[in-house]
């Protein structure tokens, strides 16, 4: 990342091969853009959402990718503030992944609101008592910070750095990156928490409601912890996949192991707190509101979801990655990180969709939700967009500082 070094010549695939690769993902992106166009032009009647399921696949994906994108702020915090040096190997990749996740999430949110052109009202007429206001303010500001963090990486490009002004902007931005890392950490803490708070404060939805400290329900803290646990897991997974796809070693193997260990440790702590929260909610909070714990799990959203979340995609990967020998094997490393990410996706799904499926009014019935192809297309487009941005970044930017050394 330092500007003093000269970027070595890195070996990349042929332009033709790269274009074929891009077009595959471009098709996915185009399909999603068509779906988005239909939703914007014809309205949200194109989705599977209704007056019961006011949030659906998009909010689930939004919450999930914002949590998984936390690798950017957490790695930045560890590297720039706590000076954990081995993260230098992949801090650039973590920033790009974070940028993709946040920009993708904001893009999806824009389609998800009924009146996209009025989106700025949440700034202009901000209701400061709403957790969603906090989320909107923080993710917008944080995307701006991520763009700033991404800029030096772009300006390090050989062609661009030939311009002295670009070169110095990149260097100077890098010089005070600690300030942006700190601001990013602050913003991320609040919006990750507020995303959890958004559901935790719904005191009229007993499945989601949690007690807490001051204005913050326990879900506020659980979402922060789960995000900083899963963010590094996704970073590990993406870097490992990049190595496999490109056939090159991009970071030291020990760096991936250390990151996975960090992720597993945090995830383990999260699971303990999550279990305590679940026990308290099931035995105290929900019954006070007139709900027996078992009543929440019906139809397609049965008790198996809780089992999957806490054990299969919870305890299992956490314990697996805490075993040093398991971390040394690629298979267990990847399965562990993948399961942690899936656990977080499942948690966000449960908080979003299951919360809305449970009837609170005694005359209402348990309902199920199925997304339409337009919703799947937009969600898939975020993946397509992400792969394209990441591929371009890998090809034209110096994402992995040790790439040259490790492949010499």
């Amino acid at each position: 990342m330092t500007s003093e070094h000269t970027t070595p010549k890195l070996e990349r695939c042929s332009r033709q091969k790269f274009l074929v690769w891009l077009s595959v993902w471009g098709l996915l992106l185009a399909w999603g853009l068509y779906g988005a166009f239909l939703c914007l032009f014809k309205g949200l009647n194109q989705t599977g959402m209704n007056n019961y399921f006011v949030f659906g696949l998009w909010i689930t994906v939004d919450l999930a990718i914002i949590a998984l994108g936390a690798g950017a702020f957490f790695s930045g915090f560890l590297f720039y503030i706590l000076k954990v040096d081995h993260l230098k190997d992949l801090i650039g990749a973590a920033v790009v992944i974070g940028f993709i996740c946040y920009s993708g999430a904001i893009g999806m949110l824009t389609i998800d609101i009924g009146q996209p052109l009025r989106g700025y009202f949440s700034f202009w007429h901000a209701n400061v008592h709403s957790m969603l206001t906090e989320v909107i303010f923080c993710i917008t500001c944080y995307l701006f910070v991520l763009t700033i963090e991404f800029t030096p990486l772009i300006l390090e490009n050989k062609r661009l750095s030939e311009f002295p002004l670009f070169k110095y902007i990149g260097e100077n931005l890098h010089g005070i990156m600690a300030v942006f890392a700190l601001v990013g950490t602050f913003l991320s803490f609040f919006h990750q928490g507020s995303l959890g708070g958004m559901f935790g404060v719904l005191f009229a939805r007993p499945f989601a409601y949690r007690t807490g400290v001051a204005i913050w329900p326990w879900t506020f803290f659980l979402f922060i912890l789960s995000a900083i646990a899963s963010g590094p897991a996704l970073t590990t997974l993406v870097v490992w996949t990049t190595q496999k796809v490109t056939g090159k070693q991009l970071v030291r193997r020990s760096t991936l192991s250390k990151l996975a260990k960090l992720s597993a440790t945090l995830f383990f702590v999260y699971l303990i707190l999550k279990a305590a929260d679940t026990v308290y909610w099931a035995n105290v909070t929900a019954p006070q509101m007139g709900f027996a714990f078992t009543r929440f799990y019906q139809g397609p959203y049965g008790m198996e979801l809780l089992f999957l979340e806490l054990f299969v995609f919870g305890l299992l990967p956490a314990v697996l990655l805490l075993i040093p020998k398991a971390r040394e094997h690629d298979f267990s490393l990847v399965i562990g990180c993948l399961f942690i990410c899936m656990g977080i996706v499942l948690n966000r799904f449960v908080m979003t969709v299951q919360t809305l499926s449970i009837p609170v009014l005694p005359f209402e019935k348990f309902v199920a939700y199925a997304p339409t192809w337009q919703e799947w297309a937009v969600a898939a487009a975020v993946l397509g967009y992400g792969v394209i941005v990441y591929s371009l970044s890998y090809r034209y930017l110096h994402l992995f500082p040790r790439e040259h050394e490790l492949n010499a």
Partner: protein
Amino acid sequence: MLPTTFEFRWDAGHMIFFGVFYAVVIAIFTSLVYVAVKSIIDVYRDMTARNEANASEHPEHPHEATNEAVIAKS
């Protein structure tokens, strides 16, 4: 967002929320302005240094060299 907005009412919540928000915005923009100014100064310093180096390497242009020296002295 702004006290001029229709129906805006200042209360403790607004003070805390917007206090923190504007602090963050100020921190980001101050840092960006610092980077921009420092980068322009760096570029200017480089240009000056290059000109000086050129001048000392090419004494056949005494007029330019004299000019540089005069500027530097003043």
